[in-house]
Every structure is written in C-alpha cells, then in structure tokens.
C-alpha cells in the first residue's frame, strides 16, 4: 500500500515539477480521463487484494477506460451533445466509489480489523 501512495506522490511531483499542461480546450477530456484512471487504479488495487490481478487486464483496462472516457466526451462535443461528459462523470464516479468501498472492506479483512 505504501508503495502505491509513494508512486502516486512521485507522479504528482513529476507532473508539477515539469509543469506540463494541455490546451485549455482539452481540460474536460483530461478531467474525465483522470476520473477513469482513478477508477481503473482502484480496480487494480481491488484485484490485487482479491489476488486476481493480471498485468495485461489491468494495463489494457486502464488505457482503454482512460482513452475511451476522453473520446466519449470528445465525440459528445462534436455531435452537439456536450452534456455527454456528465454520463462519463456519473458512470466513473459511481464505479470509483463502488471500488473504494470494496477496497476498504478488503483492506479491513486483510488487516484483520473486522
């Protein structure tokens, strides 16, 4: 668990230090992609705790979710349904909290706090 927190902190630090940014018009896509990435990472943690983690499934899931989330919002913009990003936000948001709950329970179980 500590390794994951450190990895996250390392990524954030790298990003802030390099001060990389995308065009402002892409901000919605990036935001939804971040949401999808959080969902995928929680899914990965869950799978790890359930000991069903698979590298290929996880990495492909992460890439697919992230890119597709951004792509769906992009398509929504292009076909005049700008609110489509709400669908992505709601869907991924619900999944994030679902996964979070599951991870929490699994951690409790693993750490013997039940």
């Amino acid at each position, binding site marked *: 668990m500590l390794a994951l927190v450190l990895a996250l902190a390392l990524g954030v630090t790298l990003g802030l230090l390099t001060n990389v940014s995308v065009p402002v018009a892409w901000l919605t896509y990036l935001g939804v992609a971040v949401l999808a990435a959080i969902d995928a*990472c929680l899914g990965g943690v869950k799978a790890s705790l359930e000991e069903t*983690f698979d590298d290929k499934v996880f990495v492909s899931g992460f890439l697919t979710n992230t890119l597709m989330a951004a792509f769906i919002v992009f398509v929504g913009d292009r076909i005049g349904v700008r609110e489509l990003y709400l669908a992505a936000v709601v869907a991924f948001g619900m999944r994030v909290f679902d996964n979070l709950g599951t991870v929490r329970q699994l951690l409790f179980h693993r750490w013997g706090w039940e």
Partner: protein
Amino acid sequence: MHRPPYRPALVLVFVVLGLLIAVAFNTTSRLTEVRSGRASDLVDVVQSLEQQRDDLQNRLAELRSDLARLEREAAADSGVSKSFSRELDRVRQAAGLSAVTGSGVEVVLGDGSEVAPGTDPNDYLIHDTDIAAVVNALFVGGAEAVEINGERLVATTPIRCAGTTVLVNSARLGSPYVIRAIGDPAVLEQAVLGDESASLLFDAYMSQYGLQVSLARSSDLMVAGYRGSMRPQYVRPARGGA
C-alpha cells in the same frame, strides 16, 4: 498477515495516474491565471479610459470657458461685432420694438357726452373706423412711429371694433383715444385735416355729436415700443429674398 502482491505494473500505472492528475491541475491553474490576467487587463483598460474621459471633460470645460471669454472680448473689441450690434438696434427701432422720441402731433378722440333723444347712440361714439382713418392719414403724412393709448402700431397691429372697445394689438382701448405720431408736425396736421374721412371728425361730427376731438402739435413726443410677443409660427425667411 501477508503483504498484498502489488505488481510493478500497478505501481507504474499509479505513477501515470499521478502525472495525469498533476497535468490536469497545471492546466486548471493556468486557466485561472489566464482569466485573472485578462480581468486585470480589462480593469487597466477601464481605468485608463476613465482617466481619458475625465481629461477630456476637463478640456471641454476649459474650451467652453475660453470660448465665452473670447466672445466677450470680441464683443468688446471687434468692429464687426459693434456694427452688428448697431444694426440690431436700428432694426429693432424700425420694427417698433423700442421707445422713440421726436416731434409730432397728438390727436385725441373722445366719445360725445350727451346723446340727443331720437338719435342713434352709435353716432356719438368714436369707432374703430374713425381711429383707422386718423392713423392712415398720419401715415400718409409720413408718420414714423404711432401709438394709440400706449399701444405701438407695428406690422401686425389690428385696429378693430371689439364690443364697446377698440382692439389695438391685443389691448382693448376705451375713449378717449390718444394717438401720438412722430414726424413733421405741420405735415402730419395737414395730412389729418386734409383727409376726407379724418377731417369729418374735426368738422361736422365734432360739432354735431359733441365728440371730444383735438389735434396738437408737439416738439417733443414719446412713443412707446411694442410690448407684445413676436413669435411667428408660419413665416419663414424667403430664399434669396432681400
């Protein structure tokens, strides 16, 4: 209790997630910077425009006071302005807007005092036609200014009957009617007494109906200026007219 088997792939992806979050954060903060920078630019623009407006208002007030000062100086110094001023006075006088003095005659027309039984009372009164006859005779004699009971005769002056009174300008006048005319006294007198209609007053009517009629020469008469309004609604200067 054993540690969960976190794979390198998961750790690596967490680094990527951190990067993504940082990039989103960078972009958002840049957006805020852009917005606030633009807002402060606009504030600068507004403030500078307000400054310009205030400067221009001050300049306008300055120029207006300069103009007023120059107008005053021009009126005081310029021969052109002086001559315009004199011309204006002359035109006012010709139009009958200012009081004038000079030699002339004073004609008084008063109603008869007693109406003889069986006669028409109208015959004992001074009528508008009597006054008009005298005034016309005075103009024939070259009268330059005429007033009736202080009402200056101007281009729009009517002399007409209005019930028991005579309307001159917008004033209702009653007997006796004092007509003052400025001009050559001898010529004016001759004109009135030589006029067919006017002379009847001084001759037959005066003796027959007891009218109070008199004519006196004067070397120093004053004739009042026209006091009514002159606000034409329909007349306009004729194009190319003199």
